[in-house]
């Protein structure tokens, strides 16, 4: 187990190193310098600025400095907003994004599993078709369209929820729902198919023969085994929720890290884009690693020592 975790950690660090290196050189290749705006800066000021940010040094020094500062959890300054660093943005925006993400994760997992189980228990009945139509809708509608429609219908037309902003728990419902819609649909489909497979197993028949009630069989025997594929989906799920938050936070005017990121993209604020990308990558890779370890712990059939990735 420890050996497996060590190996995975090593490969994760390698991927991370690759990402940091790639972002660094991509950003250097970006057209225009950080201070080339509409107004031409006097050469002395530009020289001072370059010196201040260490941009006059050779690229390998800059690259090495960048690696060191990332290792110290310092993601660099913003070149568009003076005096603001990427760390400020993360400290300010990430808690909001994290709360929103957790809320939609919970929504996606709980409703998704519920729909999937209901569909599987009523295979080929109207509940099954209903849940699957719902799931197909969730998969086919891009998140920004889903979010705008929810906002338009439930908030503007019906007035059930606040339209935007981030103040009370009520404000979080619509964005969390919009963010959860697509992953929820995936989970529902995944749960349904794995539940159907489990229900056809011999041990379910044994449980029936023993005279267990339908509820007991479902809860104690079927769901527990059917949820394993759902656990593997948690890694991609966190990625989906994280990238989904860019769009959702913009639509609902939520002051999270996602909307900062989108703003930095439209401002072409290269250092912020770079810093936030690296930060997001760290979060995502850790989440995936965590999911893999948890999966190994709960499914005894998987031998972690082999270090083989599940196909």
């Amino acid at each position, binding site marked *: 187990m420890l050996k497996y975790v060590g190996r995975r950690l090593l*490969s*994760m660090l*390698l*991927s991370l190193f*690759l*990402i940091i290196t*790639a*972002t660094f050189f*991509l*950003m250097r*290749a*970006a*057209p225009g310098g950080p201070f080339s705006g509409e107004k031409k800066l006097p050469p002395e000021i530009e020289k001072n600025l370059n010196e201040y940010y260490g941009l006059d040094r050779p690229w390998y020094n800059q690259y090495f400095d960048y690696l060191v500062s990332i290792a110290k959890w310092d993601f660099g300054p913003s070149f568009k907003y003076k005096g603001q660093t990427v760390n400020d943005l993360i400290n300010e925006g990430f808690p909001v994004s994290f709360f929103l993400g957790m809320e939609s994760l919970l929504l996606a997992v709980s409703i998704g599993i519920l729909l999937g189980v209901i569909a599987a228990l009523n295979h*080929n009945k109207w509940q099954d078709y209903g849940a699957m139509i719902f799931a*197909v*809708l969730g*998969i*086919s*509608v*891009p*998140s*920004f*369209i889903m979010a*705008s429609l929810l906002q*338009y219908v439930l908030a*503007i037309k019906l007035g059930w929820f606040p339209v935007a902003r981030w103040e009370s728990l009520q404000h979080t419902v619509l964005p969390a729902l919009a963010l959860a819609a697509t992953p929820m649909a995936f989970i529902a489909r995944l749960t349904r198919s794995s539940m159907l497979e489990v229900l056809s197993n011999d041990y379910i028949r044994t449980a029936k023969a023993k005279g267990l009630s339908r509820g007991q069989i479902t809860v104690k025997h079927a769901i527990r085994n059917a949820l394993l594929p759902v656990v593997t989906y948690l890694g991609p799920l966190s*990625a989906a929720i*994280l*990238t989904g938050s*860019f*769009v959702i936070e*913009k*639509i609902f005017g939520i002051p999270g890290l996602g909307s900062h990121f*989108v703003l930095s*993209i*439209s401002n*072409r604020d*290269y250092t912020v*884009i770079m810093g936030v*990308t690296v930060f*997001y*990558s760290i979060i*995502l*890779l850790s989440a*995936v690693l965590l999911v893999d370890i948890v999966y190994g712990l709960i499914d005894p059939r998987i031998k972690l020592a082999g270090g083989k*990735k599940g*196909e």
Partner: protein
Amino acid sequence: MQQIPKEMFQPASVDLSEAEKISKPSLSYWKDVSIRFRKNKLAMFGLVLLVILVFMAIFGPYMTKYDYATNDLMSTNQPPSAKHWFGTDELGRDVFARTWYGARISLFIGLAAALIDLFIGVLWGGIAGFRGGKTDEVMMRIADILWAVPYLLLVILLMVILGQGLGTMILAMTITGWINMARIVRGQVLQLKNQEYVLAAQTLGASTSRIMFKHLIPNAMGPILVTLTLTIPSAIFTEAFLSYLGLGVPQPLASWGTMASEGVQALQYYPWRLFFPATFICLTIFAFNVVGDGLRDALDPRLRK
């Protein structure tokens, strides 16, 4: 009561030579697949939908006299009417023309991304799987490390650096998009390469590339096809997502993604501007998904209910 004639009570003659006769015509694998696919109503519906969408993408722009890029500032934001079938946008451009022109771009992005993924993925996965050993280890390790890079973040980063455009978007999508295909092809090749017919081909002196392209790839075609069908909608999805972030195809080009993200901003006053592109994005993604699912079920008889 009906009279039953005596002759009907004669014992039937048993012809032993008939017992071995195959009564039904033998079916090839793909015929069998197509029969199973055609029985799947939802998948057939998706296929018909796709044919209609592709037809409209090709001929739609010629059905109206309006051009996708011509501004008409005298008639902006018109609702759908006999003149402008889908209404007009804020620059007075005809939404019907733009929708079908956008269909070409969105479908092109999806198809191009999927085909490039197919090409790289089949080569990479095929070589890794067939060579095995150290080559496989190294190639798949590289793929694993690239796979860990968050897909959309990388795509966004590349679009920011490379600038907006059709080519850069496809490049950004395929730079790690091929890995999924490579993994599937590798898995298939690993399974197939120990079959007797591969051994037979080898003993007959067939070259490696001949074995790859004549024996292994055709036999792995099923899973490859399914992956291909499911890559297209995810590329269309990504295109829409990027457009919303302001990284879509540049004006005056229209794609469904750019039209929908413009429509979102005008939703409160001119809802039809979102309605048309959004509906077609959803229909396309839906159609590709059900066709892909249908294909998977049709290709793998074990999965039948």
